[in-house]
């Protein structure tokens, strides 16, 4: 009897609160509340779990050559991981290519461990060899956390990649006419309650580039930049961008270069 009363009272109170909030609720407060939510989950980023696994994989002999990745050259010399991700993508003389973190890691796996890149390219995200890649990426990017984004376009191939990336950013296609620019070329825009960084400007590009790779709470997965871009294209209703393909590296180059000077906050924690 008493319980019913208390519960009834509680329900009435909640109902009253509900009507109040729904009529008063301004968008401003909704976005403020989202900010509070993000703040509350910021401490305790599950990316740490992947990062620990990645460090182990980095130091563990693997592949036909039974070698570790410890001599991998990510651009700052063999074995230098600290700060390397903050300067990627970049041109590598040994492959004569501009590479992002993941395409470069595939090169290291091939050169050092004898692992065939195609196996990595064909694997689905979050499974098999990609699962290892994701952990390794978490480890590598954590060692650039707090650094400044510092990507060069001095080499002609880097400049060319940047130009291609800029063009790809505005390239419309698919049954919804979307390009990256449809959502990411203006300040102050949102999809639903999610802020959309304006990637054509330094501040927005730094926000976009600087917080990925990240742990996504909606999927409970750690996503590399390749997976992030892959899902962007999926939502754009495009065909499937091949893992490590030039369009993904070109877009990365465009974003990273535009965001130069911003802070690397990886691994991030995202919706």
């Amino acid at each position, binding site marked *: 009897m008493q*319980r019913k009363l*208390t519960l009834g009272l509680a329900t009435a109170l909640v109902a009253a609160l509900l009507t109040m909030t729904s009529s008063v609720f301004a968008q401003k407060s*909704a976005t403020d509340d989202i900010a509070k939510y993000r703040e*509350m989950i910021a401490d305790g980023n599950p990316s740490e779990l992947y990062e620990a696994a990645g460090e182990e994989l980095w130091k563990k002999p693997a592949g036909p050559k039974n070698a570790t990745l410890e001599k991998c050259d990510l651009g700052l010399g063999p074995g230098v991981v600290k700060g390397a991700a903050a300067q990627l993508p970049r041109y590598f003389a040994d492959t004569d290519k501009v590479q992002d973190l993941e395409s470069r890691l595939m090169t290291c796996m091939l050169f050092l461990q004898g692992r065939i890149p195609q196996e990595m390219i064909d694997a689905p995200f979050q499974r098999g060899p990609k699962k290892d890649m994701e952990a390794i990426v978490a480890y590598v990017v954590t060692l650039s956390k707090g650094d400044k984004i510092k990507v060069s376009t001095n080499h002609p191939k880097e400049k060319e990649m940047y130009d291609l990336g800029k063009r790809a950013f505005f390239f419309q296609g698919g049954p919804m006419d979307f390009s990256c620019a449809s959502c990411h070329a203006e300040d102050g825009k949102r999809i*639903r309650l999610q802020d959309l960084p304006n990637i054509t400007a330094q501040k927005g590009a730094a926000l976009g580039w600087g917080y990925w790779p990240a742990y996504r*709470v*909606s999927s409970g997965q750690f996503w590399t930049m390749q997976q992030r871009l892959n899902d962007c294209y999926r939502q754009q209703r495009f065909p499937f961008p091949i893992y490590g393909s030039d369009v993904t590296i070109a877009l990365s180059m465009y974003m990273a270069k535009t965001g130069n000077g911003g802070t690397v906050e990886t691994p991030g924690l995202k*919706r």
Partner: protein
Amino acid sequence: MNQQRRSLMKYSAIFGLMASAGLISVAQAQEWNKAAFEGKSLDDVFKILGAGSPDKSGAVTLNAPDIAENGAVVPVGIITTLKAEQMAILVEKNPSALAAQFFIPAGTETFVTTRIKMGQTSNVYALVKADGKWSMAVKEIKVTLGGCGG
């Protein structure tokens, strides 16, 4: 012989006692409150926990956001000035209301934070048992649809 047997029995009794003392967590692991976690409604869980109809108390705070950007991860915390020995988090509109419960030994602060899943916007309850009496705090957390939705 008899003497020996008696001392052996005594020994094993002590050993058993020691083992059970050492394996307290294992014992508790087996005590997972199946009935409470399988209870569907708030009332079901209140009944199984022996909470009756807990009173709202200003001494219990449910620390949670007003809006969750995603229902898969909703941060919730309980903090209380009461001498809590047990605490629980319940979500009214989840398929099973009880999300988690905690046991607070003496010397541990009456504070806990974790993250829960919510299928939809719902009232969330923080229950605290202190001196054998249950109190609670309630808060509505809105779960929003986010992203492109594809």
